[in-house]
């Protein structure tokens, strides 16, 4: 055990991820050399993960307010109002590096962490999503990573009892050695009973609840912010193991306790565990916190104060309780078999004071620990624009090209993944994975929540600003396509090393794009997470700002789905035929080219077209709805056909090359179907709204027929779309 009063060396400072000038700042702030425990506390509070030192400046530019926002960024999760005194609380968070080191446990604890963020606020989780990014299919570690991550996401969520209803899976060379696991959770709470972290009242008990503290993930938070070196395989940090059973008990205990009125403030122990949670509770409540570490329930012997303060053991909560309700609280903790202890009290001196064996091992100014964390305006460069594409050759065989696109790793069905997730538990799942957005009914009402997670990293790479806009627009569009009013988003910004100006430039522009789209679509950011330093061997990942959206369906009977319903229904294209082929799936999947600018996003059109589609859904004018994204029109038609086992007969314009109109990825577009007799009325409605709507075909009993070009059987489409992933995972 390293003694607390050890002399702090430059090397120790560096080992703690603190730069010399940051250490200088610490010395000035406290006027003396820190103790070893204090150094640990600073390193935890001031690392990128907790302090957002590189991103804060830019995050502040995002819009965070609208009529429905109850709580914006800053708390454990954001909250939106869905009427009837009900609130939806949601957030997304990454667990990237831990999932590379130990895929199962890394992913599992990622899910556990985000669920805790949501139920800390008094919400019962009603849905979970996961956005996963892996290396190219030929990467030798891929199957190990995919099977572990998927089993881990499922293993935790299934046991905990939350339906995992949506997500995404993407493959790209640039995630090799640095796969991404972004987990999102959505909870339901009474709008007037949301629990927050600021402590209130002096001399009140600070209570520790949940699992015992072990030496798990010590330096985990620092690990999450340290660039991976090539020898990452050799590093064997203490991996955190998830215990979803304890988490489920913790959930029930917390919700039961909250009903008693005993909880004054509550904060989950996430990254940097006890340190971050205690500082957050004290600082935000303008109170000091005094902790006696001898009271902390420990799993291992002889844990040092340093270790206890930095442990990232999972399934733990910290709260300030009303002393008069202590007995009631205790009964609940015992009922659920959880460890608990009064580990400290609130004070009026604004100090963070840590005691162990009757010795004060740390005494720091609590507010400054957070407020005085460094904040950087990192230098950035303007990302270069990609030259326009000049040649997009037609495929030798159009059928072959279609099968390649609908069956490519990114576009293929992710059934192999989501069938490992319990997506039905709680009995409220109205749309299972496979649609544009998942839909979950609000228990006991006729309302429902729609949710999805989106980003197209190759677009962001090619043009960070347009790509950032596109991620938000696609999310908004997916919610719209099921008939929901998009309410708000959570964002998970996964980028490389911000100390590289070109990467910082990507980050800055993606945020600008996200902000612009959020403003235009009245779709504010209520929570989020930043994960930087995602790179291996000096090469960053594709910039990946994952957008998790939530929308409200006031009446679940007016939900739209993408499956064709009846032969003879008219197929209508909203938003016109596309021509944009830059960064398209077609280019990538049939020609191995990732070139050109991504499709530009016209937010005015996006809003206009989406609002029109939603209005039509609400007035029962549509029978099926699907947005157009990766893979273009033909991908959308394939999804609709395969979901229904019905086919389509499609006419495409003669003045555009077939492969262009089928594969273009222009934005703000949808495919809808309506009863044949309602077609002209529908088109008239669109004209009135100023929305391009063209009848492009008819639903048929079988096969996808692009008139004058190809007819592909549903079976062939299905084999291409459904078989790629299971076959890939079955190979050695």
């Amino acid at each position: 055990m390293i003694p607390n009063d050890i002399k702090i060396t430059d090397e120790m400072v560096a080992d703690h991820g603190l730069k010399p000038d940051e250490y200088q700042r610490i010395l000035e702030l406290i006027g003396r050399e820190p103790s070893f425990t204090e150094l640990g506390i600073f390193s935890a509070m001031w690392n990128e993960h907790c302090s957002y030192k590189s991103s804060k400046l830019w995050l502040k530019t995002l819009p965070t307010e609208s009529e429905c926002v109850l709580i914006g960024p800053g708390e454990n999760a954001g909250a939106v109002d869905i009427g009837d005194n009900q609130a939806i609380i949601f957030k997304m968070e990454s667990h990237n590096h831990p999932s590379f080191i130990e895929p199962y446990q890394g992913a599992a604890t990622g899910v556990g962490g985000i669920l805790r963020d949501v139920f800390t606020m008094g919400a019962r989780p009603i849905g979970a999503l996961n956005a996963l990014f892996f290396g190219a299919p030929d990467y030798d570690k891929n199957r190990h990573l995919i099977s572990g991550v998927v089993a881990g996401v499922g293993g935790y969520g299934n046991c905990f009892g939350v339906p995992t209803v949506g997500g995404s899976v993407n493959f790209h060379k640039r995630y090799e050695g640095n796969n991404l696991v972004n987990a999102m959770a959505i909870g339901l709470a009474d709008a007037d009973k949301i629990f927050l972290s600021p402590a209130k009242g002096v001399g009140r008990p600070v209570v520790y609840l949940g699992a015992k503290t072990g030496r798990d993930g010590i330096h985990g938070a620092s690990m999450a912010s340290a660039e991976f070196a090539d020898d990452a395989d050799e590093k064997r940090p203490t991996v955190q193991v998830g215990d979803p059973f304890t988490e489920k008990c913790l959930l029930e205990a917390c919700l039961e306790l909250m009903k008693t009125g005993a909880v004054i403030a509550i904060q989950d122990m996430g990254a940097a565990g006890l340190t971050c949670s205690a500082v957050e509770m004290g600082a935000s409540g303008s109170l000091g916190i005094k902790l006696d570490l001898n009271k902390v329930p420990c799993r291992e012997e002889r844990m040092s104060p340093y270790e206890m303060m930095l442990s990232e053991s999972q399934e733990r909560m910290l709260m300030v309780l009303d002393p008069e309700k202590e007995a009631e609280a205790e009964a609940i903790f015992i009922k659920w078999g959880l460890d608990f202890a009064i580990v400290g009290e609130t004070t009026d001196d604004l100090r963070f004071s840590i005691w162990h064996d009757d010795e004060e091992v740390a005494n720091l100014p609590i507010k400054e620990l957070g407020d005085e964390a460094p904040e950087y305006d990192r230098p950035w460069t303007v990302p270069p624009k990609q030259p326009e594409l000049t040649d997009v050759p037609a495929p030798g065989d159009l059928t072959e090209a279609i099968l390649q696109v609908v069956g490519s790793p990114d576009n293929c069905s992710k059934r192999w993944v989501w069938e490992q997730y319990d997506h039905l538990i709680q009995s409220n799942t109205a749309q299972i994975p496979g649609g544009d957005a998942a839909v979950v009914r609000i228990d006991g009402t006729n309302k429902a929540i729609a949710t999805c997670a989106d980003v197209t990293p190759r677009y962001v790479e090619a043009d960070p600003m347009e790509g950032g806009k596109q991620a938000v627009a696609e999310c908004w569009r997916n919610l719209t396509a099921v008939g929901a009013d998009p309410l708000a988003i959570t964002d998970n910004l996964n980028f490389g090393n911000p100390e590289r100006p070109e990467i910082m430039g990507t980050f800055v522009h993606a945020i600008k794009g996200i902000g612009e789209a959020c403003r235009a679509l009245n779709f504010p950011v209520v929570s989020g997470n930043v994960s930087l330093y995602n790179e291996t061997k000096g090469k960053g990942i594709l910039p990946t700002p994952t957008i998790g959206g939530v929308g409200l369906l006031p009446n679940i009977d007016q939900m739209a789905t993408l499956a064709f319903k009846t032969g003879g229904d008219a197929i209508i294209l909203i938003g016109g035929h596309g021509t944009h082929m830059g960064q398209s799936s077609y280019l990538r999947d049939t020609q191995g080219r990732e070139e050109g600018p991504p499709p530009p996003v016209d937010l005015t059109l996006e809003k206009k077209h989406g609002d029109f589609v939603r209005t039509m859904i609400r007035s029962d004018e549509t029978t099926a709805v699907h947005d157009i994204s990766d893979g273009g029109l033909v991908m959308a038609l394939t999804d609709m056909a395969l979901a229904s086992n019905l086919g389509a007969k499609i006419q495409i314009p003669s003045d555009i090359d077939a492969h262009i109109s089928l594969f273009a990825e222009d934005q703000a577009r949808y495919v809808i179907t309506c009863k044949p007799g309602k077609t002209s009325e529908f088109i008239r409605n669109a004209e009135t709204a100023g929305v391009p709507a063209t009848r492009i075909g008819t639903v048929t009993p079988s096969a996808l027929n692009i008139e004058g070009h190809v007819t592909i059987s549903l079976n062939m489409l299905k084999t291409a779309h459904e078989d790629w992933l299971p076959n890939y995972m079955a190979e050695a």
Partner: protein
Amino acid sequence: MKAMIKVTLKNGVLDPQGKAIMGSLNSLGFEGYDNVRQGKYFELDIDADNKAAAQAKVKDMCEKLLANTVIENYEIEIAG
């Protein structure tokens, strides 16, 4: 030859199963025991010229598949 392999969690790694088992043993009235840890156990038949060769082969299997060496240790025994 027969190989027997014990796979156990490394020291300090949380063992939720062991914890749950202790709870159950307690409520069944057992006393005077502690530190229950759950691991895995494998048996397999192996062809090899000698024990050392068998040992080496099984070690390779452990490293590549049977144990998750990030969080687990393993112990191999080869029997005639």
